[in-house]
């Protein structure tokens, strides 16, 4: 009579080697709910999220916009976060990043365009437009506000050379781009989506 069951005690500690455990032998229902601890789950999920905002309003163009602060009201970044220097943002690590920017403009009159743009460099020198939008203001009140957004996904293959800036171009120098240090008005979010 052949044996169909080997009691656990009958197995030497070194009897079940890694070579004997193939992918097909471990099914999901064999993994206890608490088996995958946080320590074993590194590398999963979103590793970098950051959020910056224009801390004070300004009028006319800003190419690039330099008056940024990291959101510091009921927000905390995930990961290392971006580095900012006078309007230029650097990434903490290589990867694929989604940048989404929201702009608010206002003007006491008509303004044909307010263009918010994301500029990207791959040589830490020359910037090119990688995302743009255009919103016009048709006056409906003494000061008429408008909002717009733009976004792009950047392949950051090198953190020294790949950086970005955000700029605003307006038709009339009296046009305001609105900022605040307590709420997100003109602001952007950066999310690392995955590896490059």
């Amino acid at each position, binding site marked *: 009579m052949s044996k169909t069951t080997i009691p656990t005690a009958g197995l030497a500690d070194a009897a079940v080697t890694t070579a004997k455990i193939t992918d097909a032998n471990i099914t999901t229902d064999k993994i206890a709910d608490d088996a995958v601890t946080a320590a074993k789950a590194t590398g999963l999920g979103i590793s970098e999220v950051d959020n910056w905002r*224009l*801390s*004070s*309003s*300004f*009028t*006319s*163009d*800003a*190419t*690039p*916009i*330099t*008056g940024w*602060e990291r959101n510091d009201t009921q927000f905390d970044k995930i990961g290392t976060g971006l580095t900012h220097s*006078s*309007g*230029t943002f650097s990434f903490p690590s290589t990867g694929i990043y989604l940048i989404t920017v929201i702009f608010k403009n206002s003007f006491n009159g008509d303004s044909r365009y307010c263009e918010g743009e994301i*500029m990207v460099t791959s040589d830490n020198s020359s*910037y090119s437009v990688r995302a743009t939008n255009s919103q016009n203001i048709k006056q409906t*009140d*003494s*000061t008429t506000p408008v909002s717009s957004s733009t976004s792009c996904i950047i392949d950051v293959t090198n953190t020294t050379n790949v950086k970005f*800036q955000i*700029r605003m171009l307006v038709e009339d*120098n009296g046009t*305001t781009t*609105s900022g*605040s*240090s*307590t709420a997100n008005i003109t602001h952007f979010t950066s999310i690392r989506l995955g590896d490059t």
Partner: protein
Amino acid sequence: MPDSNGRPNHIEDALIQIHTNCWFGWTDSKNKIYANLQLNPKIGVNNEIVNNPHSLPTEEVVNAKLKELQDAWDAANGG
């Protein structure tokens, strides 16, 4: 920021009319009073980051500009 009705009510309303671009900031952005006003060291002009060419206006100049804006708003709104 202006009142909800649009009337200028804060020195930031005046500051953005004194010069264009992101020329000023705050030592404490949660307490935007004149004593905490500072120049941003750099501004972006024509896709170049350059030294800020401006100097801090006096508190009197800022307050006078705010009053000018308020008077203009009041005049335009039946004040």
